[in-house]
């Protein structure tokens, strides 16, 4: 009897959990990002290493401070902010002055996440909020690319990296254009093999499409990413650019260039599929995807060579509405009541309208 004297704990079922937890998922995303990050360090040397370190460090430090201040409990340990820092760092040009990187990291956390209430509440991808802000504030620095694979990359830094805060950065030389910019402004196509393996210029982590896709495959295999999202974004971009290329090969780049260049692979794999922002029940052909394809026209027609960033931000903006409309099929509903009641149809029409206008205008 004495063995059973202990107090019993009463809880309601289920009494076991799957073992998945937010921090394990986030940690696995970090792991999936590591190959691309390591390749960035290999390709750009010290400059990329410093950029990534400062980006992650700045995000973690600011998150720690603001969450402690707001809730009394630091949420910097749940790995989600490390993802933000890494993604942010990977989208930056490796020679970016470090003070800009640090500032951008703070913007990611503060404007991208903290103002909305922290984890799970942010309507936009925090890393892209930071990047878009920097793009607007420092357009020259954000489009000055240092050459990769230079001889002294592990011993020397580009002169711009250590620019004193608010001073004008000095660039060593006119640096190489990214594959998309090369096409857009000079109509020079980079060979697809070089894109796949990352032997090009560009932002720190966006050069190797292969390693990014590898990270995505890892997450899909571990059931931590819905494969439909990257598949739909990449497929949409491929089909649209393929169609345009067929019509006018001189003006529009080949779909392969589109697929493996710039940050599209990174964005499609790690940003569009961000759990907080993606719709709850992604379907391969739902409206959200159609909408995103429309947004991708930025990439081909607009003045920016980096339209995917805005496409994802716009996609983020409409995803809650999509979620509201596309509720799961009702269990054994009578015919005609297959979807849950919704008051959102006018909203949907407005959204599609805005999307088409955006696409057409750019």
């Amino acid at each position, binding site marked *: 009897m004495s*063995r059973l004297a202990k107090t019993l704990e009463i809880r*309601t*079922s289920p009494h076991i959990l799957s073992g998945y937890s937010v921090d394990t*998922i986030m940690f696995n995303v970090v792991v999936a990002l590591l190959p691309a990050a390591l390749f960035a360090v290999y390709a750009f040397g010290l400059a990329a290493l410093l950029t990534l370190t400062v980006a992650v460090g700045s995000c973690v430090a600011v998150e720690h401070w603001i969450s402690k201040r707001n809730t009394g409990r630091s949420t910097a340990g749940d790995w989600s902010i490390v993802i933000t820092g890494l993604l942010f760092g990977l989208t930056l040009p490796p020679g970016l002055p470090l003070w800009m990187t640090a500032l951008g990291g703070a913007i990611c956390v503060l404007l991208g996440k903290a103002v909305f209430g922290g984890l*799970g509440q942010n309507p936009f991808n925090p890393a892209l909020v930071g990047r878009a802000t920097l793009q607007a504030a420092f357009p020259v620095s954000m489009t000055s690319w240092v050459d990769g694979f230079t001889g002294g990359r592990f011993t020397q830094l580009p002169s711009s990296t250590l620019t004193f805060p608010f001073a004008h950065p000095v660039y060593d030389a006119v640096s190489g254009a990214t594959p998309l910019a090369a096409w857009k402004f000079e109509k020079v196509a980079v060979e697809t093999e070089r894109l796949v393996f990352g032997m090009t210029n560009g932002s720190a982590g966006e050069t190797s499409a292969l390693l990014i896709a590898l990270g995505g495959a890892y997450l899909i295999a571990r059931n931590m990413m819905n494969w439909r999202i990257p598949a739909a974004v990449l497929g949409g971009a491929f089909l649209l650019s393929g169609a345009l290329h067929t019509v006018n090969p001189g003006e529009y780049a080949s779909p392969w260039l589109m697929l493996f260049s710039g940050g599209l692979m990174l964005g499609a794999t790690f940003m569009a599929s961000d759990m907080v922002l993606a719709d*709850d029940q992604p379907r391969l052909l739902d409206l959200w995807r159609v909408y995103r394809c429309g947004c991708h026209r930025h990439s081909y027609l607009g003045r920016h060579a980096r339209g995917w960033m805005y496409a994802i931000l716009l996609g983020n903006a409409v995803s809650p509405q999509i979620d509201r409309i596309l509720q*799961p099929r009702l*269990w054994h509903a009578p015919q005609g009541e297959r979807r849950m009641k919704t008051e959102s149809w006018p909203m949907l029409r407005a959204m599609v309208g805005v999307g088409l206008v955006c696409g057409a205008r750019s």
Partner: protein
Amino acid sequence: MGLLGLKSFRHGVHPPENKDETASMPIRQFPFAPMLVVPLLQHLGKPAIAVVREGQEVVRGQTIAKPDGFMSVAMHAPASGRIDKIGLTPSITGQMVPAIFLEPLRGSTQETEDGEPCSLETATPAEIIDAVQQAGVVGLGGAAFPTHAKLKIPEGKSIDTLILNGAECEPYLTTDHRVMLEQREDIYLGMRYLLKVTGAERCIIGVESNKMDAVEHLRQGMPADIPATVEALTVKYPQGAEKMLITALLGREVPSGGLPLDTGALCTNVATAAEIGRLLPRGRGIQERVITITGPAVEKKGNYRIPIGTPLRFLLDYVGVSPEVNRVFLGGPMMGMAAPTLDLSITKGTSGVTAFTDAAAERTHSHVYPCIRCGYCLDACPISLNPSDLGVLAKNQEYQRMAEERHLMDCFECGSCSFVCPSHIPLVQMFRVAKAAIRKARVNA
């Protein structure tokens, strides 16, 4: 149709099965406790009325309580002995319920008294329904719904398919598995009774494919004159839920707010069918049942035929539990209820007892994160609700909207959403609170 021709339903979850240890252990007889406490309310409905007095001597199998109206069943003496008293005992919900305290006679041979037999050949359906009620048969899968009430088909409805539920999707439990292996003939006879009562044209036994030995065993012995098939189902929780099983086997969906009957199917547990086949020909009642006693904290794990009314404290003392035990569930860990006290009795609805220690308590203590909208719960919910949205509404106590816009009342509380939630949000727990509040509001309105 799922993988490899196995039948299944959409969504659902895959908790670790943990059935290996007890699946191969034959059913053993559990000893009589020094005092058996038989609650008069072990089923859904009204408590039975005691027909014995304090101090009276009873024979094992004798009726000690009669049904009070239609939604009630009889109780039978689980042992020969003396009625000590008729008093109150705690139930799993924490409420006190009336119970008969029976002191088994030491040295008795514990012979069971037979009653009025109900012959399969001569009895009419109405007589069989009455015999099922007098035998005290309830759903042995856990819900303890009076079986005779289920068998009484309302005017204008008809049953074409009888489904025997051998899915046993709940982790740890191997009760139905053993019954299928050891009581094949009882199940066949029970099926004959059930087919006669319901007028169904065919019978399907649904068994999860982690019990292929049971599937083969039942197929091989099936008498040629019973129009029955045995179907293997994918191993997925909650495959054994009535609604899911009907969908998996027949492709029919129970209407929102409707009964399984509305699909033309009648579903009962295999163990219930086995009891009907075992008891009715001899006019006996349920005085014992098969349970699995298992879990990381239990030393002598196994499947036992245990007298109804055995106190939980005696049961755990007999099988031996680790000193660190701190959680005991009646049923399995997915849908079982935590025992608030060890003074509970094993009732007809108890399909198992699982005991856990702190070390094996997994992660239920950990921190609750905000919802990260991963959508795992949407992929888990077997009836395609939106637990993510429902969770937000529950937090804001918008119970009416949960019911009207998000169909909360369809939820049968399987707990798949809470199981998968990486933020550890107690979703199904919040839904239970919400459902109770809605029901209360409807009663008051």
